[in-house]
């Protein structure tokens, strides 16, 4: 079967007054209707990889690739209009900074219903019911109040869930979720993961799940890419994470605190400059 997404030799670079920053340095992978985890060090290029696929890297950032195709269509040559149409419907990304990616002067309700009204031509009442149902699904306790709230009136985890709800409403085929549960406690997180899992199984969603939480990715995803300094240094089945070979991946698991664990300094990584080559 044809992959949903093909990425070959993707690069993202920024020319800044302080010099050139190579954020992504030749990343390649394909994605089917599956759950692909991307883990990696802070600053290793996970977010920029996601943004580049959606063509959301702002200038002066420059994106190049040998191939970047969604459902067989070349994304690099697609005019911006076509790209925007895809983003509104078939491609979506849950941003790492949800509260700053939402519109600060528009209520949550309006942001959630806008697309339903315009794109799907739902009545105000029907759009509202859909939005409230989606907020309930992501475990928002008082959806009616949250519909009327502005982003700054939400807690961190509520903002994250509103963003997830907003991206799921158009029923995309490809969802890039950038640290979507980093502000959620485990009980709510489990519920959000259950929803995403259901969409992958039942609707054939392709999911790129960016996270710094290795144990979570090991449990939730099918495959994992490990990024370090702009490159994929390891690619493996999630179930094989214990047999990871790369010293970065292996070292990560040792750095985690555990309930009831020892109190002294946590083990840290000795980074080898060779890892970045």
């Amino acid at each position: 079967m044809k992959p949903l997404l093909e990425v070959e030799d993707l690069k993202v670079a920024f020319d800044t007054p302080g010099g050139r920053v190579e954020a992504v340095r030749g990343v390649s992978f394909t994605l089917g209707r599956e759950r692909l985890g991307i883990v990696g060090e802070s600053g290793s290029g996970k977010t920029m990889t996601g943004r580049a696929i959606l063509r959301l890297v702002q200038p002066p950032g420059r994106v190049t690739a040998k191939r970047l195709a969604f459902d067989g269509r070349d994304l690099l040559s697609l005019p911006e209009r076509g790209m925007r149409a895809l983003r509104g419907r078939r491609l979506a990304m849950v941003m790492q900074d949800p509260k700053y990616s939402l519109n600060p002067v528009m209520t949550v309700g309006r942001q959630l219903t806008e697309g339903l009204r315009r794109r799907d031509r739902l009545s105000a009442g029907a759009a509202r019911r859909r939005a409230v149902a989606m907020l309930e699904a992501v475990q928002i306790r008082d959806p009616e109040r949250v519909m009327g709230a502005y982003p700054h009136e939400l807690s961190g985890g509520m903002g994250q869930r509103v963003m997830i709800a907003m991206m799921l409403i158009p029923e995309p085929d490809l969802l890039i979720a950038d640290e979507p549960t980093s502000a959620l406690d485990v009980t709510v997180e489990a519920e959000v993961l259950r929803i995403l899992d259901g969409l992958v199984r039942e609707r054939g969603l392709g999911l790129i799940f960016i996270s710094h939480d290795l144990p979570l990715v090991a449990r939730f995803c099918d495959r994992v890419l490990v990024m370090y300094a702009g490159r994929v240094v390891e690619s493996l089945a999630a179930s094989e994470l214990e047999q990871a070979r790369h010293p970065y991946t292996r070292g990560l698991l040792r750095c985690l605190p555990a309930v009831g664990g020892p109190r002294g300094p946590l083990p840290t990584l000795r980074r080898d400059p060779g890892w970045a080559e």
Partner: protein
Amino acid sequence: MALIEIAGLEVVFAARGEAVRAVRGIDLSVEPRESFGLVGESGSGKSTVLRALCGLAPVSAGRALIDGRAPPALGRIGSRDRAFARRVQMVFQDPYGSLHPRHTVDRVLSEPLLVHGLGGRRERDRRVEAALQDVGLDASFRFRYPHQLSGGQRQRVAVARALMLEPSVLLLDEPTSALDASVQAEVLNLLSRLREERGLTFLMVSHDFAVIDHMCDRLAVMQQGRIVEVLDREALARGAVREDYTRALLAASQAHAPVQ
């Protein structure tokens, strides 16, 4: 006397004629040099408690005191505010929102020193460089703007800023939520070392039970604006918890324990 003292605290936000009761009467005291954790449901009022201690949330009833005093009133710049800032610093949950979008990292970190008249140019430069290094950022980050940083890099700048004035009380709201395990370990080790060296007092929010257990002596579990349970580390280790919600959190964090 406790260093942080919260008694009967209620915070009510008025939103379009509706009252949102974010904090519904909580009592909590943190001793000098103690490290106290807050965990709980998303939306249960954890950030609001920290904000009330800084004077950034409307206290409708009760009190939230540090050193026996209420925080200075919002928006006034006076000598009391400066004294407060030197003693108490907060790391906000939202690193993006808390960093000025048009200030470079250098300015973010050196401004507190400048405002408080600490050190000359040379000394400020040295301290900015040291602060970056402490959070694992090399000198190439010094003249970047927040939008030129990754999520975790921004969070580390926010931590570094809070440490610039060498405060004795740190209010930490999910300070490592955007960091991978290796960088998280470095930041947590830094915080623990400073606490030891300088006798700091922490009030720390995290949704990660293991992080709280590693960093804190005691913790409170919040649900819907209330504290439902207070535990010390030893009770946690024995699994001696009362509330179902706490038990669920604990069980989940153990199920999540790294595969060794």
